[in-house]
């Protein structure tokens, strides 16, 4: 093996050395910027500096798809072949690109000038088909016209209200455009209990997928006695079909920062982290810049506005692992480990990041906070329904005329959302809508009147999840969509618990058979046994929902899973 020049490594990772193990992911990212991948000698040097066992460093590199321990180019093209891009020709784009460069997917040219990969959902579904080229988004690729856009992904924002998205759609809002942190200033004049009470009165619940009441988390952490408490912003956003947090953070970073500050004030935390998925590299520079602006203006850092309250935020960047959006896996990742979810209880509110009481909230959840505090909960609750107050972001993708981010009050119907998005292109009929993402379930054309609220969807047996509304027209073969879901979960299972580690693989194999018309007798029963076992017995939410869409499809369209069934599309 050639020896690598280790000279540039030490200065590049210097600032992470005092962190020890929690510096591991940032150090590996820094090393990969230099070498393109992590050769053995580089890994050993990082291990030595950070005092992490060699085998553990290797274990971490192996866990994350965007870390490489084999020769890989500094320039990686990741073509999305997940569910929405799959509908829009993602496979063809990958194949043509590979052909052009004489590579197979996941291969690197001999001179290390290019690596081509297929990728799980890149969080750019409204711009399908798409790819990530180095640190830039290649969006709305049109092979026929040979056109695409490259750079920062455009934000397409629509809908009848613009509260959460007031500053989205026009590039990154600077601090000057954002203005004073008025909500924070107001919160500084309130007692912490009053802030929590306002959040409680607003009825705010989590927008990350689990719909957990925000105030309960805040109250618990506020009640804990600890030398250190943390606020963690979950910007891992890897649920296929979800792209709202990308737009919020990229266009309006100050809103999330202000939300975190108010949370910190309410619970008594002095340190925060924003964990951004590795596939959103273009978010990092504007986000860093926003943090700098906030610090310079005295909104962030020590003794904020002379109030005695101090709070600062660090960014952590993931490296290709959907599971790191699960809150405890995310903590493990910040701690420099493989992203294995922890057994709960204990819960993050008592034993979170570094074992300390931690509030973890989704980007969109946090963006509601400044709105609630500045308007007051009474005004905020005028929007939406009694049980689901306020505004909500919906990610529309797939077969709609105008895919994009839609802001609407809770209670808008599914049909209204479809109409806002211009309906289905090409005079085609609606076949199905996947709600909640890969971990979601299918709605059918007779359910268009369902109100998009937590309570109405639950009554209809449908998930709200992260606000995904993924539309399939009548010509789509749903077995192909399910096949991609199967691939996604098998690729993303962390492997910790048996039901999901093996179940996602078995599910994928059966769905592959079903999609290629080679269904075996009893495959439907196999899918159900595997599916229910994952749902019932898995350790974390990934396995518990990995069969959700498949089981819902079996209920709706059992005929698709029967032996000898030819393509649905004549």
């Amino acid at each position, binding site marked *: 093996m050639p020896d690598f020049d280790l000279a540039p490594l030490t200065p590049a990772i210097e600032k992470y050395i005092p962190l020890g193990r929690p510096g591991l992911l940032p150090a590996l990212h820094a090393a990969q910027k230099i070498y393109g991948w992590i050769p*053995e000698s580089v890994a050993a040097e990082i291990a030595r500096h950070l005092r992490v066992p060699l085998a553990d460093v290797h274990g971490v590199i192996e866990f994350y798809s965007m870390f490489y321990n084999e020769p890989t180019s500094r320039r990686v093209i990741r073509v999305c072949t997940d569910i929405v891009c799959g509908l829009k020709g993602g496979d063809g784009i990958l194949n043509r690109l590979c052909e052009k460069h004489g590579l197979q997917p996941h291969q690197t040219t001999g001179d290390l000038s290019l690596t081509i990969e297929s990728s799980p959902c890149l969080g750019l579904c409204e711009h399908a088909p798409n790819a990530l080229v180095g640190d830039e988004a290649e969006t709305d690729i049109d092979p026929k016209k040979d056109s695409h856009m490259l750079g920062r992904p455009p934000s397409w924002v629509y809908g009848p209200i613009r509260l959460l998205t007031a500053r989205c759609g026009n590039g990154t809002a600077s601090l000057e455009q954002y203005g004073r942190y008025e909500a924070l200033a107001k919160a500084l004049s309130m007692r912490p209990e009053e802030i929590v009470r306002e959040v409680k009165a607003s009825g705010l619940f989590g927008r990350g997928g689990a719909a957990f009441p925000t105030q309960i988390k805040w109250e618990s952490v506020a009640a804990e006695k600890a030398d250190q408490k943390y606020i963690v912003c979950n910007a891992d956003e890897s649920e296929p079909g979800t792209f709202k947090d990308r737009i919020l953070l990229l266009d309006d970073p100050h809103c999330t920062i202000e939300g975190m500050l108010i949370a910190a004030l309410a619970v008594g935390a002095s340190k925060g982290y924003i964990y951004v998925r590795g596939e959103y590299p273009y978010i990092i520079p504007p986000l860093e810049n926003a943090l700098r602006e906030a610090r310079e203006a005295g909104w962030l850092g020590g003794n904020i506005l002379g109030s005695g309250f101090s709070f600062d935020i660090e960014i952590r960047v993931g490296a290709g692992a959907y599971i790191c959006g699960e809150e405890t896996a995310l903590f493990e990742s910040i701690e420099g480990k*493989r992203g294995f979810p922890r057994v709960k209880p204990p819960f993050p509110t008592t034993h979170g990041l570094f074992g300390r009481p931690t509030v973890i909230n989704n980007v969109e959840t946090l963006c509601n906070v400044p709105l609630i505090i500045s308007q007051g909960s009474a005004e905020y609750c005028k929007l939406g329904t009694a049980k689901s107050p306020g505004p909500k972001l919906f990610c529309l993708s797939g077969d709609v005329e105008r895919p994009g981010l839609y802001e609407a009050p809770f209670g808008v119907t599914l049909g209204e959302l479809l109409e806002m998005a211009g309906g289905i292109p090409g005079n085609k009929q609606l076949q199905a809508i996947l709600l909640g993402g890969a971990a979601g379930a299918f709605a059918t054309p007779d359910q268009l009147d369902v109100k998009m609220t937590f309570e109405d969807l639950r009554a209809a047996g449908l998930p709200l999840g992260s606000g995904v509304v993924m539309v399939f027209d009548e010509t789509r073969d749903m077995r192909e969509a399910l096949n991609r879901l199967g691939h996604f979960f098998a690729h993303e299972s962390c492997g910790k618990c*048996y039901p999901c580690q093996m179940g996602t693989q078995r599910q994928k194999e059966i769905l592959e058979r079903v999609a290629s018309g080679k269904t075996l007798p009893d495959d439907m029963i196999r899918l159900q046994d595997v599916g229910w076992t994952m749902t019932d017995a898995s350790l974390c939410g990934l396995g518990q929902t990995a069969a959700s869409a498949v089981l819902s499809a079996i209920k709706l369209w059992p005929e698709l899973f029967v032996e000898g069934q030819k393509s649905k599309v004549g």
Partner: protein
Amino acid sequence: MAITLVIDGKEITADDGMTLLDAARENGIDIPTICFHEATTANGLCRICVVEVEGMRLLQPSCIVKAADQMKVQTRSERVERARKTILEMLASTMDLSDAPAILTMMDEYGADAARFPGAARRESEVKDDNPMYIRDYSKCLLCWRCVQVCAEDAQYTYAINFEGRGFKTQIGTFFDRPIPETTCVLCGQCVGVCPTGALKAKREFLLEQGMSPQEISVLNTGRKRRSKA
């Protein structure tokens, strides 16, 4: 403090803080386990020990969930049986269980069909024979994590091994696949002791199984001299 709960219709008392598994076993109710081991931290990996607890949406791993007063537990409900049977069938379709008699017995008990998943990918790898003490046959590994745990904080603090890959493709491995003598391994043998499936095996046991006699093995045995009677 003593608590009272009902397991399979039988009222039992247990100490507060006990796991459901311990409470059940102390009262003669058997719950199967695979990854659980007295000497290692319970991680709730295999989920074969799941039980149905009234009022809880999901099945609960009894090796980590604490018994609570007035809990109502079923250890062999239909849902529990389906989960256990399916997990066993997936294991059989994934790995070589020939050296894991306890699991084969479990398969019989739950009526698990080893051929349930036709065309299933298996986790297979070459036997790693790179040190004088033990061989590593990861085709027989069921990822109970015990070896990694005793090599780290659960016992030895050696940190010679960790994980490769993730998901179904996870395997136990060393730093960049280095042979054991080039790692921090101190050949303490604890990992071999806790391995439930013969994936880690004393080299001598392995050679005996290959048909060699103890004499032949002893000649092979490089390195150390035979102890002389002083």
